[in-house]
């Protein structure tokens, strides 16, 4: 942190520009974007449907949050400048505030227009959410005029706040960010926190923070805010420094310290499920199943750079093989193997499927490969559903009464007991993480990365590109089939509708949002997306969002690709590759600036 402060001081700031020296066209454009975004969010009915999900009891609900972040963000973005090395930078001042207010006001005017239209016109025929309930929520039940004026003023005020963020020092921005994140996150995690606090006998803490009918209480919000401030100001820095100090004193390498962290996580993974309630265990099981899938796809997409859109095929292979092998009622073949024996058959089938799908596509151009794998995913699903294969797969009726998983006669994991299933999932996730970690730093892993970056160069370096890509495909397939096999044992039945292309795309979103090629990133992606928003068929903590989660996934995918293609927790090497242009540009600009300095010096020298 101290380093960034120094560089900030080193930049010579030009004086602030006057408040009305604006790029008005840009402001109007951003204002219109703000208005459109507000109208779009209103028409999706988020304000109404999410209104019941309270963040801070009397003050704020998720419904209103879905509106108010827009003017703040856009009021901030409108005056954001890309600062490149050697460019003149102006001091921030009144100009930023004026721009923010204008953008917010234009956006608010758009929302006011919508309120007026809601009152006077009836467009409910194509637009299903065009109804009085929405009008009620937007105008607070106080009439059209009140709502319209309120939103123009409120939106302008929020835009002003967004612009004002430029004026605040960096530390204040970080504090505000930490506070809002803590509060929104705690409110999202409400039901899980309830569950956990019960397990640890900490109900008093939960009751201090949350209201009975849901949502944080005002005092709870204040406590959390103080905690967030304390964390940013003291504890966060302390923890980092402590870690560095430990590493320095014992002459340990940072990786050793990371190992300590890993051990801590492992202990938590063993101990925590005992204290968790049913709901959280079930939720974490879903997260674990998707994490297993995402770790597999991370090897295929993140390390080897093969965009496999039919990844769900291997999940289906795992699920159906386990179902056929273990269920006593599976049509056709029904060997009724114990689950731990069936898992070997599952691995074998996954390898066969991986080779069979992988071999034809491996030589194709990257984008053709994506579509063809997607095609294979659909072919497998359609075949499983058809009458032709229903002799083995049960067709649309699926396979029922799958017994739980038994582990080498030691224990039987019943699908109905979420805690046992969670342990099973944690076991497999641990294997997957270990395998990915070892592979990443092995000869194979380096070969994958070389193939990802440039196939011709990799081949020239003596890498057998076809074989190494096939290996990635097969390893990914095995991990996905594990997930499928656990899924079958957990749910007790498999249907083809659980294996739609949608699942592939959700896994892709998890990998990309988390950070391609980085295990911690993928884990964070799975926790946040599946845990909070929910998987394709599984509800998350924000059950109210189920209608909107796919919309949010789509928007997230676009936004990540445009703004941060390396993901939330990026792989260092990969992000360097993705931002190569910017690094080069910075270097070029720096060189230019140096040249200019040289010329200036020589220019001054000549007349003298």
């Amino acid at each position, binding site marked *: 942190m101290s380093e960034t402060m120094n560089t900030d001081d080193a930049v010579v700031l030009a004086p602030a520009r006057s408040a009305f020296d604006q790029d008005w066209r840009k402001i109007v454009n951003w204002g219109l974007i703000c208005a459109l975004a507000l109208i779009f969010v209103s028409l999706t009915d988020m304000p109404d449907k999410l209104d019941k999900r309270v963040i801070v009891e009397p003050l704020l609900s998720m419904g209103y949050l879905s509106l108010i972040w827009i003017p703040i963000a856009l009021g901030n973005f409108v005056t954001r400048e890309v600062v490149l090395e050697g460019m003149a930078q102006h001091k921030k001042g009144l100009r930023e505030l004026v721009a923010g207010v204008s953008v917010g006001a234009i956006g608010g005017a758009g929302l006011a227009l919508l309120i007026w239209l809601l009152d006077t016109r009836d467009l409910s025929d194509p637009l299903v959410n065009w109804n009085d309930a929405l009008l009620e929520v937007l105008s607070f039940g106080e009439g059209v005029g009140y709502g319209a004026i309120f939103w123009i003023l409120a939106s302008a005020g929020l835009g002003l706040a967004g612009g004002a963020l430029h004026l605040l020092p960096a530390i204040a921005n970080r504090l505000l960010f930490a506070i809002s994140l803590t509060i929104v996150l705690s409110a999202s995690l409400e039901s899980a926190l309830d569950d956990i606090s019960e397990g640890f006998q900490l109900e008093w803490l939960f009751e201090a923070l949350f209201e009975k009918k849901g949502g944080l209480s005002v005092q709870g919000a204040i406590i959390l805010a103080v905690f967030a401030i304390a964390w940013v100001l003291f504890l966060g820095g302390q923890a980092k420094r402590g870690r560095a100090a430990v590493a320095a004193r014992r002459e340990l390498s940072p990786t050793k310290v990371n190992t300590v962290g890993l051990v801590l996580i492992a202990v938590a993974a063993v101990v925590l499920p005992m204290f968790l309630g049913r709901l959280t265990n079930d939720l974490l099981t879903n997260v674990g199943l998707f994490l297993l899938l995402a770790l597999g796809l991370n090897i295929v997409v993140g390390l080897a750079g093969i*965009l496999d859109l039919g990844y769900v095929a291997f999940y289906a292979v795992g699920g159906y093989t386990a179902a056929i092998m273990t269920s006593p009622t599976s049509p056709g073949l029904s060997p009724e193997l114990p689950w731990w024996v069936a898992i070997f058959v599952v691995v074998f089938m996954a390898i066969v499927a991986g080779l069979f799908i992988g*071999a034809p596509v491996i030589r194709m151009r*990257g984008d053709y490969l*994506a579509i*063809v794998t997607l095609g294979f995913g659909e072919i497998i699903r359609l075949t499983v559903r058809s009458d032709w294969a229903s002799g083995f797969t049960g067709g649309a009726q699926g396979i029922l009464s799958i017994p739980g998983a038994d582990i080498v006669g030691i224990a039987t994991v019943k699908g109905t007991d979420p805690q046992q299933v969670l342990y099973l999932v944690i076991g497999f996730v641990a294997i997957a993480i270990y395998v990915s970690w070892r592979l990443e730093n092995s000869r194979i892993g380096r070969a994958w990365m070389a193939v990802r970056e440039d196939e011709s160069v990799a081949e020239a370096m003596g890498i057998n590109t076809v074989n190494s890509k096939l290996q990635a495909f097969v390893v990914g397939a095995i991990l996905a089939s594990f997930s499928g096999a656990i899924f079958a044992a957990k749910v007790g039945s498999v249907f083809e509708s659980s294996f739609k292309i949608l699942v592939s795309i959700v896994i892709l979103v998890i990998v990309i949002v988390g950070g391609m090629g980085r295990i911690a990133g993928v884990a964070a992606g799975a926790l946040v997306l599946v845990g909070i928003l929910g998987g394709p068929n599984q509800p998350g903590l924000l059950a109210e969002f189920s209608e909107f989660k796919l919309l949010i996934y789509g928007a997230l995918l676009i936004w990540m690709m445009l703004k941060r293609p390396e993901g939330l927790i990026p792989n260092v090497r990969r992000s360097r590759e993705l931002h190569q242009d910017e690094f080069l540009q910075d270097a070029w600009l720096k060189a230019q600036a140096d040249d200019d300095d040289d010329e200036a010096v020589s220019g001054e020298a000549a007349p003298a």
Partner: protein
Amino acid sequence: MTTAMRSKAAPRTGVDWFLTFLRVLLSGLVLFGLSAFLLQQIDPGNPLASAINPDANRLSWDAFQGLVISGLSQGAMYGLIALGYSMVYGVLGFINFAHGEVFMVGAMTGMITSNKLFEAGVWEDNFLLAILIAVLVSVICSTVTAVVTERIAYRPLRGSPRLIPLITSIGVSFFIQNTSAVLLGPGAKSYPRLPDWLRDDIGIGPFDIEGKKLLVLVVAGLSMGALWYLVERTKTGKAMRAVAEDKEIASLMGIDVDRTIVTTFAVGGAMAGVAGILWGILFGSVTEFTGFLPGIKAFSAAVVGGIGNLGGAMAGGLTLGSSESLAPQLVLEPLGVTGHTQLKDAVAFLVLIFVLLVKPTGLFGERLSAEERA
């Protein structure tokens, strides 16, 4: 192309043998199925034919021609959508996954307009005027959708690694699909009832064609003609071809590359809009998922015909449409596959895989610049 060159230079690996095996297996299955079909056609009681599939029936001429016509009319639609994929791939070198959703937007807005016109009574009084308005509205909406997605999602990514715009377009596709579900409500929505003359059969030579299928074929043909004129005979088209060939040289020749790319998206969007309304006329209903499968199939059609090749896209669409409608009856049923019509969609993907295995440049040859082929 590359496989052939490589196999001469390097010794064959296991993968090559497997691919050869797959090629032979797939061709063998198709040939075997077809010959079994012919045998059954000659005499269903034929011992060889009945050994393969004891329940075999002879396919009547009426049923056959029905399959051909519906395959062709559906294929014409695939062809219209495929044009958009093909043009964008030719110019920018990436698969615009969201193009199927542009088509869905066309079908959706067509549904809304035609229902409004039906309520106003125009649909029944003056069908041609109504359908003209509906086509106009959906073409405009599809074009706007295509251009806006280009501006927001693809233009900032120009020059990034080629998988990045592809992933973005998957996001766009997902977003548009769910926007439609949230704003307009999920589930199927139907078009108003068509006038009788579109639902009756019209006899042309030996064929009896349902009016709406004939309409689809005619409209697709006209749009194709208009597009051919635009691309081959106008200055805009020349600019498009130049940009597809080499963006840098084209800009040195004074062509506004950004604008040409927008035009390409707009033209592709317009074609998808036409296809959308034709879908509505042909099937009478539309859901938010309408765009997904036809979109992927249309991309397959573009690959089958040779990507970047506009005539090829149309031909690929017709090939794909008719094989997906005929193959279950002609190849799968004689082989004894039960419930063969359920595998219609699988056939479309198998055709794509087969073409990519046997002739990766498509049936009519791809037209791409050297940089995109790499």
